[in-house]
């Protein structure tokens, strides 16, 4: 048996006490308690009774929002990944000038520092309800995150071919098009697929703030207390996310 007394140093004791204090404080702050959970159970039961059985006749009305969700995801991923490519190259240390890559990096940080849902709400306020706002939000976020990932991939490429091309007098544009791009292409495609999955998932819930798709239908059903319909929409969202998950995994395995 390990000696318990030798393990219990004052530092560890202080850390344990500190951790317990932080948790106690967090539990107080978020009003999380077993009593609250038990008190909430009847309300939850009431909600479940309203939600079941799902109104399956509503399913055929879900076709349009379902397709819209898919379209938002595809369009945002396509435009986002096309825009992210030049941004990624401009943000890479081995491809561009410090006067260019520092500002570009800052822009990319801001673009992805703000969550899609917040962008979506801002765009809804600016351009109104509908899928347009959702697409803009997802494009902005995709450019931010994919630009950073591409920049990291570009910085990790083998410098040999680039140097060889420079030494025979190739222009910077040609160096990156024929030297670096072929090296990062598989990684780029794999990121694009990953964010396609991610964007479709987000497109399904962006509607909560009015940015179109299945989420909007779900939000609307809950606001007018049609919980059986909400359940059908939730089932559609779960199916969509599961199918996209499998499909993107399948495609990624084929590409890499």
């Amino acid at each position, binding site marked *: 048996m390990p000696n318990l007394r030798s393990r219990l140093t004052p530092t560890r004791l202080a850390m344990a006490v500190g951790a317990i204090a*932080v*948790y106690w404080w967090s539990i107080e*702050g978020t009003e999380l308690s077993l009593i609250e*959970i038990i008190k909430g159970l009847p309300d939850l039961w009431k909600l479940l009774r309203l939600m079941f059985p799902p109104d399956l006749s509503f399913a055929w009305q879900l076709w349009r929002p379902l397709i819209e969700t898919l379209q938002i995801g595809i369009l945002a991923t396509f435009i986002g990944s096309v825009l992210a490519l030049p941004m990624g190259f401009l943000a890479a240390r081995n491809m561009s000038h410090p006067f260019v890559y520092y500002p570009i990096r800052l822009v990319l940080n801001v673009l992805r520092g703000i969550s899609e849902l*917040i962008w979506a709400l801002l*765009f809804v306020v600016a351009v109104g309800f509908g899928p347009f706002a959702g697409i803009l939000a997802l494009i902005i976020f995709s450019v931010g995150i994919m630009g950073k990932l591409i920049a990291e991939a570009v910085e990790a490429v083998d410098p040999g071919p680039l140097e060889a091309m420079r030494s025979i007098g190739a222009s910077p544009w040609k160096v990156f098009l024929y030297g670096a791009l072929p090296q990062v292409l598989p990684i780029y495609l794999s990121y694009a697929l990953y964010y396609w999955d991610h964007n479709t998932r987000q497109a399904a819930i962006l509607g909560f*703030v009015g940015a179109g798709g299945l989420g909007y239908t779900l939000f609307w059903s809950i606001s007018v207390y049609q919980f059986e319909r909400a359940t059908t929409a939730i089932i559609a969202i*779960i199916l969509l996310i599961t199918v996209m998950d499998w499909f993107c995994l399948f495609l990624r395995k084929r590409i890499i």
Partner: protein
Amino acid sequence: MPKYPQAAVSIDRPLERRRALRLNWLLTSGVILAVVIWCAWGTGFNIPKLLAGMPALHDLGGRMLPPDMEVFTELGVPTIETLQMALLGTTIPVFFSLPLALLAAINTTPNQVLGAAIRVLLNTLRTIPELLWAMLLVSAVGLGTFPGTIALILHTTGGLGKFYYEAIEAVDPGIIEAMEATGAGRFQVAWFGVLPNCFPILLSSTLTYWDYNNRAATILGLVGAGGIGLAFTHAIQDFQYPIAMTCIIVIVLILTVIDRISAALRARVI
């Protein structure tokens, strides 16, 4: 026969193959372009609309700036709420996910049917976005951080559970076999054999989720589940755009700091 090094690139690629490749490439890009056009048509997304939206965006940007720094201190409470939700939403699920993952992993489950059932449960919990959980819980028990925390706990239990059972399944089967050969019980194999072996992965996926949950906690408020997101939504609804801008700044600050902390912790544990 002497061995010559193989040429890295075959230069004499037959002409037909090159033609076929070019055709393949053309077809693929044609299909992608057609799909993208269909999507743009279906969602009403086009360049004139984008240009027409620019003044509105500029107008909103103008109204949000400069941020209202007076409310900066008032945002302390929602910020702390956000951090607390993320902390509890990440650490409480560990106590559910770990036993469930041990029961779900193919190499440690006492019963394969039970294992499959738990895997389905974990995947369902994970598939439903935390924002959806939050919206349902808010409509059941009302506004506040309480439904937000529960939503994070539900989603994270599924996500961490999946990470955990995948890590457990990747453990070297020799260790389990060796321990079983010495007569160790199921619990002893799990506690002294399996878990110490995948501990770094477990820790690193928990850190990933802590990062993720902080991000999620900042937006849960958009459906009424407390934190800084709720302050942001209220500001937007009251047309107080400078305050909304301050909230965005606070959110970016929170996420940047958490990102740094989790990167530092990760470097220490792995």
